[in-house]
């Protein structure tokens, strides 16, 4: 009774409102029928001043066994206050096809769904209408045996995809397709460009002190020409290392770089830097044994070359294990086509691009090296300290943050004392620098003892815990579920049933992963945008059999890689992100999902 009254009131009040607006059934009149060639024609007749949202207006064929919509023709929408809309009756044509073996009349249903507004100032609720149709399959063409889908795996160099198709591919696959285009000059130039861009990322920064140190350790009075030559040797061997590692990774799916990220290799390499540093401090002269030099070459000059080459080779593999989209693109190409030559050329060009700024650094290190004297000693000493810093930096991957922080602080304190923080007879500028460094290093030391692991905020542990709790509540951070094996990942995915998932492949030795962590994932907008995703971190630092299997399953060549799964947990492979991505770009990427 109450409901009846209510309904009565409502209808009365609806009529009582000024008769200004069209009722929904007057505003929208959907129609659908078959035309003479057996295709579906549908439209939504619009009342005066009525328009439809393009995105919410759809014509679909349902419950028609053996008949598929090959394509839908629809009118162009226009812009209306920032919305894409149809302002006049839109007509849709659905071209149908039958699957092979289908004949006779097939019953089906056409559903026209729509939502729109009136210019007079209101919007209508979404609505749909369904129409029963009898499809005469004798009029329809048959579908082709296999739908032509674009898949990088099925591409051969014979059918290079168009640029339009590239829009649906991930950056990595688009780059793989650049190689497919086959023009050698374009490939080389493109990849050199990629390399130059990569040289601006933190992956390459640690190589700057290395190359400078290498040049300076060659001794006094080095000519510009020789500095250039040695820098070239360094960069070339670095490029060769990248190329070999890349081609092997592409062909065998084995990641040589990752293989070298084991504690033994890192301790050895770190040790080399300590040795280099000590030679900078003048404890001894770093040279190959004379007997070996004599065998390799008659000229003692060449002893340096071999060392520099080994240095370049190893620093490529151990210092800069950064996988970015161009590298992965070349690897995908090699893996899919087995064409190691073209892929290798691309990788080589990229590494050379990466090395160009390093050559500049090397040459200037040689050129501006001061004359022997007090200054010279100081410059070599500073490089010695930088070498030690690089050695500690590499250790970060295999030892705990606590140890590296203590090491950094000891290094800093030592350097500050060397500069003369405690002496009276030192220039005020030098002394200030030394004192600042001393204070920071001591903070680091105290921070490490206090359990802090942040190089930037070593004393954070001193803050009252209440305040920290408050901060955590406001500035929420992203919560990742950590997995290490295929089983663990499957389990995490099962727990995230019905939700979108992002899987972040990362490793402790991966510089770009740290950037991603520290910049992109700390951005409040990104945190907000990722709130609808279940976040999983696949830790492949250990690089054991299980981690390799996990990487292989998802075609991951190396971290960082971000995979996106929709709510039904289908991998959105065109949306895969390889390498570091800036917050703004990442937001756009998420918006396009």
């Amino acid at each position, binding site marked *: 009774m109450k409901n009846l009254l209510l309904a009565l009131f409502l209808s009365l009040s609806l009529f009582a409102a000024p008769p200004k607006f069209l009722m*929904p059934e007057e505003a929208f009149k959907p129609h659908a029928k078959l035309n003479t060639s057996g295709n579906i024609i549908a439209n939504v007749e619009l009342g005066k001043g009525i328009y439809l949202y393009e995105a919410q207006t759809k014509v679909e064929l349902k419950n028609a066994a053996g008949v598929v919509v090959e394509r839908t023709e629809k009118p162009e929408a226009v812009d209306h206050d920032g919305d894409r809309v149809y302002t006049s009756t839109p007509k849709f044509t659905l071209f149908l096809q039958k699957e092979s073996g289908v004949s006779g009349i097939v019953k089906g249903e056409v559903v026209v769904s729509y939502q729109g507004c009136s210019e007079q100032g209101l919007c209508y609720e979404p609505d749909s209408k369904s129409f029963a149709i009898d499809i005469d399959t004798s009029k329809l063409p048959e579908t082709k045996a296999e739908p032509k889908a674009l898949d990088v795996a099925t591409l051969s160099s014979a059918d290079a995809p168009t640029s339009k198709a590239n829009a649906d591919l991930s950056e990595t696959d688009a780059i793989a397709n650049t190689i497919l285009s086959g023009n050698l000059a374009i490939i080389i130039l493109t990849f050199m460009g990629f390399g130059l861009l990569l040289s601006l990322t933190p992956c390459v920064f640690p190589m700057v002190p290395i190359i400078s140190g290498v040049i300076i350790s060659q001794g006094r009075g080095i000519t510009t020409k020789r500095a250039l030559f040695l820098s070239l040797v360094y960069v070339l061997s670095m490029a060769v290392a990248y190329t070999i590692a890349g081609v092997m990774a592409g062909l065998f799916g084995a990641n040589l770089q990752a293989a070298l990220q084991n504690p033994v290799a890192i301790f050895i390499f770190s040790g080399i830097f300590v040795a280099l540093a000590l030679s900078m401090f003048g404890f001894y002269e770093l040279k190959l044994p004379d007997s070996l030099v004599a065998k390799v070459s008659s000229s003692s000059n060449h002893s340096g070359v071999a060392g520099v080459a080994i240095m370049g080779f190893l620093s490529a593999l151990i210092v800069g294990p950064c996988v970015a989209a161009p590298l992965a693109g070349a690897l995908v190409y090699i893996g899919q086509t087995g064409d190691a030559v073209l892929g290798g050329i691309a990788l080589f060009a990229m590494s050379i691009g990466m090395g160009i700024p390093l050559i500049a650094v090397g040459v200037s290190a040689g050129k501006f090296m001061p004359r022997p004297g007090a200054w010279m000693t100081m410059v070599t000493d500073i490089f010695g300290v930088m070498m030690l810093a690089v050695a500690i930096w590499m250790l970060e991957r295999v030892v705990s943050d606590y140890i590296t922080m203590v090491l950094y602080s000891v290094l800093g304190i030592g350097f500050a004392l060397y500069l003369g923080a405690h002496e009276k007879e030192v220039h005020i500028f030098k002394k200030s620098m030394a004192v600042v460094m001393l204070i920071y290093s001591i903070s680091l030391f105290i921070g490490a003892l206090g359990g802090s692991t942040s190089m930037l905020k070593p004393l954070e542990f001193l803050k009252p815990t209440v305040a920290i709790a408050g901060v955590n509540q406001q500035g929420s951070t992203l919560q990742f579920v950590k997995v290490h094996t295929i089983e663990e990942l499957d389990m995490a995915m099962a727990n995230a049933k019905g939700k979108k998932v992002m899987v972040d492949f990362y490793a402790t030795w991966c510089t770009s992963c740290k950037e991603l962590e520290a910049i992109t994932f700390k951005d409040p907008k990104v945190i907000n945008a990722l709130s609808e995703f279940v976040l999983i971190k696949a830790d492949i630092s250990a690089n054991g059999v299980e981690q390799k299997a996990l990487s292989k399953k998802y075609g991951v060549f190396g971290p960082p890689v971000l995979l996106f799964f929709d709510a039904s947990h289908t991998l959105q492979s065109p949306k895969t992100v390889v390498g570091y991505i800036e917050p703004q770009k990442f937001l756009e990427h998420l918006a396009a999902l």
Partner: protein
Amino acid sequence: MKQLACALFLACEIFAFEWKTLEEAKALQAKTHMPIMIDVVRTNCHYCTDMERDVFEDKAMSAWLEKRFISVKINLDKEPLPFSVKVSMTPTFLFLNEKGEIIKSIPGSWSIEDFQSLTKGIK
């Protein structure tokens, strides 16, 4: 213009119309006996947003409404209407008396003047 004045004098107050949840509104209605006004909206309905900006965020109009109604907003993209009645348009303004009956339904977006004259008789 308002923003300009705001920027110039740095003295603008941050003002937003106060929407209650339906539960809060019912509790308040038991005390004040005012009708509840439910603004039924959708996210993609830009007339809803326009009206909110031009009408409800107007300070004088907001005070005028607050004296008469307890205002609730329901976004159909986030929650369904909590009773069996369906609206076919957004925005639609539903006015509820103390028994929970809908005493008036006003579809469409309006200017301040029109909305005042449409709603002033509702008690």
